């Protein structure tokens, strides 16, 4: 299945970094996301988008994960020649990832 089946996401921008949250619809799927959706796998999935480093942060209190994707915005919103300079749509690029259910 796709991540889109079990989680929602929101994209934000800080300079040339895209911030992507990943929030399971059901809190019990958080463990699955922690296990399967590593920074390395996100970096591989977004290989055509993210030039720099991907870092994952855990928020078990919500629960949710966040990813900072450096060099993802073609220079950042103010100078990007891309169609979506903020990378607002990148949350749905993340949700294209495949994940195997338990």
């Amino acid at each position, binding site marked *: 299945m796709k991540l*889109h089946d079990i989680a*929602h*996401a*929101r994209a*934000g*921008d*800080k*300079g*040339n*970094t895209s*911030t992507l*949250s990943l*929030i399971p*619809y059901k809190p019990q799927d958080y463990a699955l996301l922690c296990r399967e959706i590593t920074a390395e796998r996100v970096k591989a999935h977004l290989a*055509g*988008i993210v030039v720099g480093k991907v870092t994952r*942060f855990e*928020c*078990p*209190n*919500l629960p*949710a994960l*966040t990813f*900072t994707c450096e060099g993802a915005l073609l*220079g*950042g*919103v*103010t*100078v990007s*020649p*891309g*169609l*979506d300079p903020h990378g*607002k*749509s*990148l949350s*749905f*690029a993340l949700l*294209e990832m495949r994940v195997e259910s338990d």
Partner: protein
Amino acid sequence: MKRSMRIGCGAGFQGDRFEPAVVLASQGGLDWLMLECLAERTIALATLQRVRDPEAGYDPLLDRRLRTLLPQLKKNGVRLITNMGAANPLAAGRRVAALARELGLDMQVAVVSGDEVSRHLHPGIAVMETGAPVTEVPDIVSANAYLGAESLLPAIQTGADIIIGGRIADPSLAVAPIMHHFGWRLDDWDLLARATVIGHLLECAGQVTGGYFADPGKKDVPGLAHLGFPFAAVDADGSAFISKVPGSGGLVTLATVKEQLLYEVTDPAAYITPDVVADFTGVRLTDLGGDRVHVTGGRGLPRTPTYKASIGYRAGWLGEGEISYAGANARARAELAAAVLRERLEDELPQVRYDLIGINAAHRSDFGANIEPYEVRVRVAGLCVTRAEAERIGWELESLGTNGPAGGGGFRRSATERIGVVSALLPRNLVHTDVTVFGAHIDADSQTLADI
């Protein structure tokens, strides 16, 4: 213990809808309304306007946004705090005072100035993105520090109805009124962190009430055409519930609040503002039902010794062009068009990118979907040094009309100057802010409270 206070957010970006703020001011039971209208680059563009006209450079929608809002604020005793002063807070303050007079409203305006820091840039200050000395950034047009609650509190303490500034950290627009209401100190770190959580949840207005959220069938949102904007009802311990005016569109649920809590956050354990370093990982959310979500927890560490400043510079010209192909073989004709453009442009303008809208423009990939859409739009774009180079991109695209593949239509082209933004950290002692009060009922034009 002081009673709870309510603060709403009536705009989350410069061009936001007007009417949700009026609904909040008239029906929200608010003490305060914040309007966040200043994006990173907006202040650089506004600075260029001020250079041309000393009374310009504040938010161009100031008059339209406030004309219907001020009477409701006055009637309901709601105080306003906003960054609509942009690159010229004093001119904005004079204009709002004049507008209030025009409307027959007795309202005082307090202006916070001092965020403009271009004279303080020196080679010892590094650009955060590159590490190079800030003085090496070419064609700087503006430099503004993100002010915090400490700079806003003296303005609030004047008792003015309207507080206007320029570059202010977005959450601080909520932190300062909340601090003032409860009498918190500048080093009540945990309380400031909780107020920062509240400010962060409010700062994008509709983004916590169902905007930027709907995904039909997965996350449905009622009434998006009349989205209600949020308010927070804050208690003395820094906890709050987030809600919206009953009957307005949208929704407030755990899911909308979680998405906004993490929006534009890099490290959730260290969210840095001028006021505090806030840790969001202890925040607890509870759905109270009826579009109310309770927010509590969150810890704070002492603020950093620096202000972040954003520096605007002339970054060149963006040239863009688009053309559509539809029907049988649309994708192949679009790919041919892109190939022709590449052959004609790539020697002189190697930075130009070629996207197929409908296939790979937004994500630079289709993740293997390999679909054959009914229509495809070719987009060609590049950041250039000169205007002439940028215009060349659109001209080449337009020439495909008579020289390119069959059935190309819907040309659009543009060449626009780009203002880039980089960041730097400035020692706090370089930044000095002032408060100036303009009053509708005061004969003299202004009364300055220097160096509060």
